[in-house]
């Protein structure tokens, strides 16, 4: 009964989203107030129905209803409760339902937090989101219905893939989807602007917080995924340039370009067309990511050919989205105008250059991800491009980008002078060069690339401190330096924090790639080895039993200078249902280093092959990512987004003579 209720709710959600996608947009174009007013209630009703559908699916998992095919495929009666819930999005059907649920979450968020926007704008934005919803509801209902019954019902389920039975994987997909789908809001704003022909600073200001929130979720999602791969796959790596990872990284690169371009559009009115185009591409890449991961082309282009329905559907959605939005762009963009002019040496130039670098990087990832698929589908041979390609491309592209990251925020808008920039950044230059040269020497081994890495990290850090110092000295606020810094606008502080996060991230990456020590070795019981100043002693393996697995648990005592530092317990598990072996690494996490041990195979007489890593500063990689995301959060709490809402509401109350005028005035107020 419950699965059918879920299916029914999903069909209702589709019906509502059709209304949401057509009526408000038509109303906004034709000027019918009553049609415009449908947008908000429709989005809210749609959310209620999709949430109900999702709730029904969760319920079928919780009660182990193996008469539902998807539940029988993904779950098992022995599965612990929290993994039964995360199993909901452990497979294709459920994760697509999560996709539409999150689209519903973003839609209702727009409908609730858009009181400051003119009604016709909200109608268009929610309308576009409604149309996207229609596409994805049809996809779920026609090709991937999670509520399909199984006749006769299965006695027990086939269990969740053991790799996914992990706390990190409970929150990773929702975070990632919040990011992917969140860019649909930026996209909807861009399309709404094109439809209305109103592309101005006010539009950028409305769109900006939404884009930043989507970006921060995507950042968190990617960071969590990388962290999961690090501790769960047993290989000690944190990024593999795997197509699935690239699928999430491409929208991130494009989205990062977008939030910077939006900043210019808001502050200076320039880059308008560029910003709109970036918004379209960012969301298109999110769709491409969904297509790559969900169509089966990655496991095999032939798998796509044998079961083309799903892939073809998403591909069609992708082509439609890109096609329609670019046509609209080509038709409307020439009317937009260029906006403020700027000089070769200016903050605009720095931001534009960084935009281009990010896009070239994104294009390089796209090439490395899609070209092998293309060759294969044309039967022209099978190739792969591994990490060496991406590493070779990324370093030279990101080095100038990171250099400009410090220059951009220091340079003046419109026209900056080189001597002024040099004077203001001279200490940053000196400190970062010295630290860049010294750090590798302190770490024991010098190298040009690592030295460049540290220089870049310190360069960005110093520039952040310099910016804060300059602002504090100019500030009229009373009190000490700290309170002066706190009194700065949150968007500025958020930017500083996010840039600082990038610096922390670079330190982590440079340290790990330069000073990591790996040892694969055979260890008999009682054997010891020395690594990174620590002594690792293997004390044998015992059998342990988990809720749904049996494991060999190794015991490795770690000593430093004769004192026991920690005892590591890596496991080799066999999950009982799928009889799948899995390595569970043991990690001792520290601020400056991780000690990482995983079991290989039993060799003979209780001896095992063991892999031991010493990973300096590895947690700074995810720490940096987290700080970037926090920076994004800080930026969206900026007072001006709230202030604008108050002013706009006041204007709205004073002046009921039409939405067009409201926005013009809103924009004027904000600019003054």
């Amino acid at each position, binding site marked *: 009964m419950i699965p059918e209720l879920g299916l029914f709710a999903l069909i209702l959600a589709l019906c509502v989203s059709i209304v949401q996608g057509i009526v408000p947009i038509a109303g906004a174009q034709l000027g019918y107030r009553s049609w415009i007013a449908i947008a908000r209630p429709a989005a809210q009703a749609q959310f209620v129905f999709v949430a109900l559908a999702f709730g029904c699916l969760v319920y079928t998992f919780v009660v182990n209803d193996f008469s539902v095919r998807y539940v029988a495929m993904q779950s098992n009666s022995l599965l612990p409760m929290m993994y039964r819930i995360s199993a909901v999005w452990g497979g294709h059907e459920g994760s697509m339902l999560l996709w539409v649920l999150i689209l519903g979450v973003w839609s209702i968020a727009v409908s609730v937090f858009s009181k400051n926007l003119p009604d016709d704008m909200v109608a268009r934005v929610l309308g576009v989101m409604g149309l996207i919803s229609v596409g994805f509801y049809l996809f779920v209902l026609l090709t991937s219905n999670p509520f399909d019954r199984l006749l006769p019902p299965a006695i027990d389920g086939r269990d969740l893939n053991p790799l996914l039975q992990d706390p990190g994987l409970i929150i990773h997909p929702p975070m990632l989807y919040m990011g992917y789908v969140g860019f649909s809001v930026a996209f909807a704003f861009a399309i709404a602007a094109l439809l209305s022909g109103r592309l101005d600073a006010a539009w950028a200001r409305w769109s900006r917080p939404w884009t930043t929130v989507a970006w921060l979720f995507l950042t968190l999602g990617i960071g969590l995924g990388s962290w999961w791969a690090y501790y769960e796959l047993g290989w000690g790596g944190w990024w593999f340039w795997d197509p699935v990872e690239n699928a999430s990284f491409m929208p991130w690169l494009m989205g990062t370009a977008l939030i910077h371009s939006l900043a210019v559009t808001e502050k200076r009115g320039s880059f308008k067309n560029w910003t709109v185009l970036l918004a379209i591409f960012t969301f298109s890449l999110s769709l491409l990511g969904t297509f790559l991961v969900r169509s089966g082309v990655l*496991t095999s282009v032939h798998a796509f050919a044998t079961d083309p329905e799903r892939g073809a559907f998403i591909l069609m959605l992708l082509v439609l989205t890109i096609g329609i939005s670019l046509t609209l762009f080509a038709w409307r963009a020439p009317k937009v105008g260029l906006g403020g002019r700027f000089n*070769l040496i200016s903050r605009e130039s720095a931001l534009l*250059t960084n935009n281009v*670098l990010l896009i070239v990087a994104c*294009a*390089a990832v796209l090439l490395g991800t899609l070209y092998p698929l293309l060759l294969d589908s044309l039967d022209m041979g099978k190739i*792969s491009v591994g990490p060496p390609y991406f590493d070779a491309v990324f370093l030279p592209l990101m080095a100038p980008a990171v250099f400009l990251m410090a220059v951009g925020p220091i340079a003046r808008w419109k026209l900056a002078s080189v001597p002024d920039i040099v004077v203001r950044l001279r200490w940053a230059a000196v400190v970062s060069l010295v630290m860049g040269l010294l750090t590798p020497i302190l770490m024991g081994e010098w190298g040009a690339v690592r030295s460049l890495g540290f220089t870049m990290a310190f360069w960005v850090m110093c520039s952040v401190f310099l910016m804060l110092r300059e602002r504090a000295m100019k500030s009229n606020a009373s009190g000490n330096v700290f309170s002066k810094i706190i009194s700065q606008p949150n968007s500025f502080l958020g930017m500083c924090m996010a840039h600082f996060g990038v610096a922390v991230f670079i330190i982590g990456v440079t340290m790990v790639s330069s000073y990591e020590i790996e040892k694969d070795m*055979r260890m008999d019981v009682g054997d010891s080895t020395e690594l990174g100043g620590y002594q690792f002693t293997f004390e044998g393996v015992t059998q342990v039993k988990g809720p749904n697995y049996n494991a060999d648990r190794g015991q490795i005592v770690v000593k430093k200078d004769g004192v026991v530092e920690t005892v590591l317990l890596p496991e080799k598990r066999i999950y009982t249902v799928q009889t*799948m072996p899995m390595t569970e690494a043991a990690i001792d996490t520290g601020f400056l280093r991780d000690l990482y041990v995983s079991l*290989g195979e039993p060799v003979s007489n209780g001896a095992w092959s063991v892999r031991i890593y010493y990973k300096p500063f590895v947690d700074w990689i995810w720490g940096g990512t987290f700080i970037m995301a926090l920076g994004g959060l800080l930026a969206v709490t900026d007072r001006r987004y709230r202030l604008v809402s108050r002013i706009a509401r006041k204007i709205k109350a004073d002046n009921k003579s039409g939405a067009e005028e409201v926005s013009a005035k809103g924009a004027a107020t904000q600019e003054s």
Partner: protein
Amino acid sequence: MKARHKRLVFIVVGLAGLTVAATLVFNAFQSNMVFFFSPSDVHASQAPVNRDFRLGGMVEEGSMSREDDGLTVHFVVTDRAQTIPVIFTGILPDLFREGQGVVAQGRLNDKGIFMASEVLAKHDESYMPPEVQDAMERAKKATSASLATPESK
């Protein structure tokens, strides 16, 4: 005049930058492409000699042995038509097993042994690497074709 100059500088700098970036990307791409070959391809001397490539097929039953150091592993990769011996030093992925599909990256030494630097793992028990599947099918077709020809004579 000045504005025109400025625009020219913009365009020249931009184009130069993009050219450099594109050259860099394509160069990196060219030198890091890794091709995939089956044991039959290798026997037909299609695989490169002084360059890494990927070898795929099944791990032959009973072919796996371990040296005393516990890390160096010998096994044979087959596509049921031809075989290639492989040596790998290191810890094998969880799902490496005799009779299962495998993809290894490395190069041939002068004795015709494939020295693997990496053995690739996949996340699923029932999963067969698509390249391997394809290689097996090609080898099957080739053998059945060569069997069919004498019969028809």
